[in-house]
């Protein structure tokens, strides 16, 4: 037999509370489902994007404050090449990061995995908030527990957001302040100045370095052009085309011996690089070196339809 007091806290009010809570719960679940759908529906990144993403998530071990993606240090360039190799081999970003962490330490990673004491720092706010939520719920009278559950869930949710934001802020590398000193007298930048400034902002971008070098060369700043192209060659030492552009600029700047060195090294690695064959062959031909003939003949053999091929053929015939 129930008492009058227990009848005062009977089922109908509790049932009503549950019904009012249902739309809130449904809305939260729908929001979570929408977020998950958005994540799954995003198009897969390209290989270059994947490389960039992984490189941005690792500190340069040489240049403090820079990521591997942005650093121009030779170590960072070598790491960048290794990342590209592993992405091309189909390894996942997490597997690549783990590979580097095993060799350089977890401190290399800009967002280390939650383990050791670092895990505790991430989890403490959530654990504390969870404990508070449990206390709030347990201490409430049965009729007010619904409000306590909502309050408790809100506290936990806020703690998770705060932990996540703190982790992101802690992991972000320091920003690079743009250098405005390149602006001309009238405040207008030339294209070469603009590209140089952009390359300073993103010094690990080989394309920007090459573009800046070529723009500087067009404006007659051959010394500065050679520096940008040398940086590009350091970032991508296996790229014969970049080395050729650098050799061409050195030649125009009167540094024939340096240009010859660059071309000889390129041809040692890429003996059929047509542009290098043409340029080095021409230099040697003009010096009266018979090796020039061999290189020019090889160029004509590889690129018979090249606009320069007819001129080279004629020259080889004229001077047997």
């Amino acid at each position, binding site marked *: 037999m129930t008492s009058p007091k227990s009848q005062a806290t009977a089922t109908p009010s509790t049932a009503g509370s549950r019904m009012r809570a249902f739309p809130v719960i449904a809305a939260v679940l729908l929001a979570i489902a929408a977020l998950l759908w958005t994540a799954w529906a995003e198009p897969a990144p390209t290989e270059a994007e994947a490389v960039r993403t992984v490189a941005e998530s690792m500190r340069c071990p040489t240049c403090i404050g820079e990521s591997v993606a942005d650093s121009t240090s030779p170590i960072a360039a*070598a790491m960048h090449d*290794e990342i590209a190799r592993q992405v091309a081999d189909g390894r996942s970003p997490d597997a690549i990061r783990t590979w580097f962490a095993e060799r350089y330490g977890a401190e290399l990673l800009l967002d280390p995995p939650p383990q*050791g*004491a670092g895990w*505790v720092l991430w989890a403490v706010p959530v654990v*504390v908030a969870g*404990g508070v939520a449990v*206390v709030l719920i347990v201490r409430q009278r049965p009729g007010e527990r619904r409000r306590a559950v909502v309050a408790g869930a809100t506290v936990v949710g806020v703690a998770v957001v705060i932990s996540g934001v703190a982790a992101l802020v802690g992991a972000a590398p320091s920003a690079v302040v743009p250098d405005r000193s390149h602006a001309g007298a009238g405040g207008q930048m030339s294209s070469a100045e603009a590209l140089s400034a952009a390359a300073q902002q993103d010094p690990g971008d080989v394309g920007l370095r090459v573009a800046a070098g070529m723009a500087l060369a067009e404006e007659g700043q051959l010394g500065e052009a050679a520096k940008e192209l040398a940086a590009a060659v350091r970032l991508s*030492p296996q790229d014969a085309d970049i080395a050729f552009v650098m050799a061409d600029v050195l030649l125009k700047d009167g540094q024939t011996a340096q240009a010859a060195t660059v071309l000889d090294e390129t041809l*040692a690695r890429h003996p059929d690089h047509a542009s290098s064959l043409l340029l080095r062959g021409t230099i040697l031909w003009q010096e009266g070196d018979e090796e020039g003939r061999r290189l020019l003949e090889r160029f004509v053999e590889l690129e018979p339809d090249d606009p320069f091929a007819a001129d080279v053929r004629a020259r080889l015939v004229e001077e047997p």
Partner: protein
Amino acid sequence: MRRWLALLVLTVLAASATGCASESEPAPIAAPGLAGTDFDGVTRSLEDLRGQVVVVSVWASWCGPCRDEFPVLNEAVADFGEEGFAVFGVNFRDLPETAEAFIEEQRPDFPSLVDSDGSLSVSWGVSALPQSFLIDREGYIVARLPGAVNREWITGVVAEEVRR
């Protein structure tokens, strides 16, 4: 309330203890593979030196402090070579002609692998140049030295490992 609070504090403390325990001194690790060709085109491997104490030294011709350590490494080879000690160089991302000119100038008494794209060095976790690794006779990395090798390191750390 006090029981709940105590439980919460215990949970956090237990997690902290777990975290601190997991950051204790790492055990020596087996040296990664290291093989390739030297400047004479000879194929060489660190594995061929198993049984000797080896200093793996990563250098480049564009690295100023690297010049300081070559005489020290040569001296170490002369002092300890007959006790089972060797030096194994790795030339990191260098132009062949400038690296060869550097070798001609420094005259090292040890070979160096050509690591033109830096992949060998990255697989060893090289973070700056010069950098050296001390490998024991079983093939484990027992010491790392950032910066140029100096006599103190040779007569202290290396000599101790050779005479172990």
